[in-house]
């Protein structure tokens, strides 16, 4: 039954397995459903396991069940519409004549024809019926208001629900979302025994009891917790503006990941000089020297930036793009100083490697291992952050 629907779903990249298909068949043989609408929800509940695939499911459902709509329900709605005299008053004179010249069957036939046409190309607009003055079904807007084909809540048909594609926003193959970044960051962990001694050390306890000739002595140890601390330095403003959203997502993923022992973050513009900033507007400054002297070197350092700037901004004293910064130390010296302080560091670049053939990108890439800010890049970066050195 419906085996092709299974393949339509798989074609539309819904990850359905045979197990789930058999479950659906089981549900169908138990007589759980009586119509297509119930089938829509039943099949979705059994076959689709993430809201990210609801949209794929809608697309596949529409494709497979297109034209299966039961016409009986539609004609009932039309009858109701025609019976209501108010609806006739909204037709123009020309439409009135056309309307009267058709008998009910013709009208129904015409409507179904058009309805089908529109079903197939629904993307173009929000209206269901009527395309200007000569239609017996009224101007766009009047007719659907009268009979509410594709109206709201209970009256809706499964295919129409599918057509709405309300879950389009939940798809995750379009962009890198916060959740994916979080999952990538999850692997950034190093478990070590810290905190209070709250776990029974079985081996030591047995040894101790044996030594005491059966007298019980409990031995405790510290439990394993993630010891990873992260320092996040992000380039903001200027050429990074187009990536604001992406950086924002990375930030909120890191910020809401509760499994880090500590997360500190600062901002800079283009390159790091004498100061770093605690806010995006770059008002609250912290001196780079002070930060380096107070922060332990076992923080995992993640730099985010495009690393593209004028060579003078990187190489020269007073090179900062902001004239008032008057940096005494060239940016490249600062970067080296930072790299020397930490043991593990990566640079995430929102531009892909194709764009890294640029003098300053190359120079910075020699100091910090550079990865593109994509899911794959992030995973690799995390891997290089946890290798033992």
């Amino acid at each position, binding site marked *: 039954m419906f085996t092709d629907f299974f393949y339509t779903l798989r074609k539309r990249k819904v*990850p359905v*397995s045979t*197990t*789930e298909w058999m*479950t659906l068949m*089981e*549900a169908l043989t*138990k*007589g*759980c*459903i*009586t119509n297509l609408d*119930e089938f829509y*929800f*039943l099949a*979705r*509940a*059994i076959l*689709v*396991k*993430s*809201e990210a695939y*609801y949209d794929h499911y809608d697309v596949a459902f529409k494709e497979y069940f297109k034209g299966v709509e039961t016409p009986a329900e539609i004609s009932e709605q039309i009858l109701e519409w025609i019976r209501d005299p108010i609806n006739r008053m909204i037709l123009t004179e020309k439409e009135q004549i056309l309307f009267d010249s058709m008998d009910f069957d013709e009208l129904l036939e015409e409507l179904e024809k058009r309805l089908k046409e529109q079903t197939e190309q629904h993307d173009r607009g929000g209206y269901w019926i009527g395309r200007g003055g000569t239609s017996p079904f009224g101007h766009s807007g009047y007719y659907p208001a009268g009979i509410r084909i594709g109206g709201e809540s*209970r009256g809706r048909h499964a295919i129409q629900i599918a057509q709405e594609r*309300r879950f389009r926003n*939940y798809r995750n193959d379009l962009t890198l979302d916060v*959740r994916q970044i*979080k*999952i990538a960051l*999850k692997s950034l962990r190093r478990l070590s025994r810290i905190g209070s001694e709250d776990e*029974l050390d079985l081996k030591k306890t047995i040894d101790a*009891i044996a030594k005491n000739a*059966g*007298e*019980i002595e*409990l031995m405790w140890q510290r439990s394993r917790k993630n010891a990873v601390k992260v320092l996040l330095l992000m380039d903001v403003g200027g050429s990074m503006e187009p990536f604001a959203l992406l950086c924002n997502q990375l930030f*909120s993923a890191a910020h809401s990941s509760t499994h880090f022992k500590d997360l500190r973050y600062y901002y800079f513009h283009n390159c790091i000089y004498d100061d770093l900033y605690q806010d995006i507007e770059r008002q609250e400054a912290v001196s780079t020297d002070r930060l380096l002297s107070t922060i332990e070197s076992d923080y995992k350092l993640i730099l985010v930036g495009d690393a593209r700037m004028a060579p003078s901004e990187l190489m020269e004293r007073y090179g900062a793009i902001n004239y008032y910064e008057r940096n005494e130390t060239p940016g490249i010296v600062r970067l080296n100083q930072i790299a020397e302080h930490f043991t593990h560091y990566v640079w995430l670049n929102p531009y892909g490697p194709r764009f890294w053939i640029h003098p300053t990108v190359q120079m910075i890439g020699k100091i910090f291992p550079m990865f593109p800010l994509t899911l794959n890049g992030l995973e690799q970066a995390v891997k290089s952050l946890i290798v033992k050195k």
Partner: protein
Amino acid sequence: MKSDGFDQFKGSSDYVTSEPLRNAVNVAIALGRPLLIRGEPGTGKTLLAHSISSGLGKKLIVWNIKSTTKAQEGLYVYDTVQRLNDSRFGDRDVSDIKQYIKLGKLGQAFASLEQVVLLIDEVDKADIEFPNDLLNELDEMSFHIPETNETITAIHRPISVITSNAEKELPDAFLRRCIFHYIEFPDPELMEEIVQVHFPNIKNSLLREALKTFYSLREIDEFRKKPSTSELIDWIRALIVGGIPHENVSKEIPFVGTLLKKETDYDYFVNSHMTRIGSTFITRRQ
């Protein structure tokens, strides 16, 4: 769900459900599969199990999952330390291991003489392998206790509801065995119904103003945590207790602290919006 013999879940008086959700629950009951519920915080994932329990008149067993929870704990715990202790002081007969076996929540649900509703709350909080460790037990509804050579088999398959915030990806093998439903954030119409369940005597004008303000607050994307249903209920309670006239609700947004729980969100809102609306609210709060 038209067939006879199925437990027909229709919702309960204190919990408003949508039709697709009711269907998903009934399918899960009919097929005896766990029902996995996902959705934004505050959409009533946890309350669903309570509603099923009261709607069908069955006992509810809640297993709250924490980051340290192990799958084994849900089945049974062998209290070795107690036994060791007893062996030292000779209080009890230590050769009877049975008395040191304590059934976990899942074990209790299996052993129960009548069918129960089992809620496994926030399954994604535990270790990433946690759901896989429960696969076999949920599939066969039985487990073996080697210490006493006993097998606990479910007398009645419990109606299992599993909630998740999707913080972690759940393993595929686990997902394949579940019925899934994603609870969307309620639209204003459904929300009106939900509020009326909590406050049957609420004035229409107040309800309308409150909902209008609430949904416009949810439009603000800058919030770290958007206000959800439970915050709305608290807020409306505060509005009623405070006797706020409805015409002041959207103008002043009194008690906005009940809606915005994060300090950053609160500051952001006060700075960016309150200045426009006027300072009435801020002075009142001080």
